[in-house]
């Protein structure tokens, strides 16, 4: 029959483990997503490198909609003025994208 002291000890270890896990999860959640700002008809930065699993946010600061589009990989649909489109990088590669509404706007996403 386990005594009181060993029960208390196991509880303490479990509690400590849970606290450590919470701290780790909290730290991971605070890592900001990479951001591309869409403004004055440009993607800034025009070239961005991220790692597989990272999130990228495109923020539209122009007064009209834009899109982020690359065949078979990126399709934001219309991003309204003030809106954000978030994409999680899935597999490594170089993606050249553009705005379907304003084809002179181009950008590049490199996923490592």
């Amino acid at each position, binding site marked *: 029959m386990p005594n009181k002291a060993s029960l208390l000890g196991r509880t303490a270890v479990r509690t400590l483990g849970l606290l450590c896990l919470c701290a780790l999860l909290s730290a991971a959640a605070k890592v900001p997503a990479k951001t591309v700002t869409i403004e*004055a*008809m440009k993607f800034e930065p025009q070239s961005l490198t991220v790692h597989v699993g990272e999130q990228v946010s495109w923020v539209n600061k*122009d*007064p*009209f909609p834009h899109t982020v589009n690359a065949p078979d990989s990126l399709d934001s649909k219309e991003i309204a*003025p003030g809106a954000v489109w978030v994409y999680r990088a899935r597999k490594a590669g170089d993606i050249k994208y553009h705005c379907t509404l*304003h*084809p*002179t706007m181009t950008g590049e996403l490199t996923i490592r």
Partner: protein
Amino acid sequence: MKRSMVIFLSLIVGSAWAAAAGPTDPQIAAIVVTANQVDIDAGKLAKSKSKSKQVQDFAQLMITDHTGVNKAASDLVTKLKVTPEPNDTSKSLQKGGDDNLANLKTLDGAALDKAYVDHEVAYHEAVISAMDKTLIPSAQNAELKALLVKVRPAFDAHLAHAKALQASLAK
């Protein structure tokens, strides 16, 4: 270039404004709002009449983008408590826009498409020139100037798109 464009450009570039202090912020606001609305109205007419998907898509882009710019301009002047002041240039713009609409209403098919796109090329060239030579340099309020600078690339993109469409229609 159409006569209305020549009138507009000469009013902006060759007028007393170019030599003196330039238009005031309320006058600039009226010019900007009118310039955008003229293109919105032309876009709506072209989109409703044209049978070409390319022309319809371009017209929709003009409607969407110029509506957005007008909203941003209107929000800003409201915030700044500036009342747009109609002036010779804004009135000339409106007249030119009305004349263009009257002309487009008489046309159909390829003739409509050509007339609309040709006008869009000339119009955006005139507006960009006016922004560079008069509106941006004359704007006194920093936020108004910043908005004009920020939206200018959109007019460049529209001009490039209109020219490509013009070339495509000429084939």
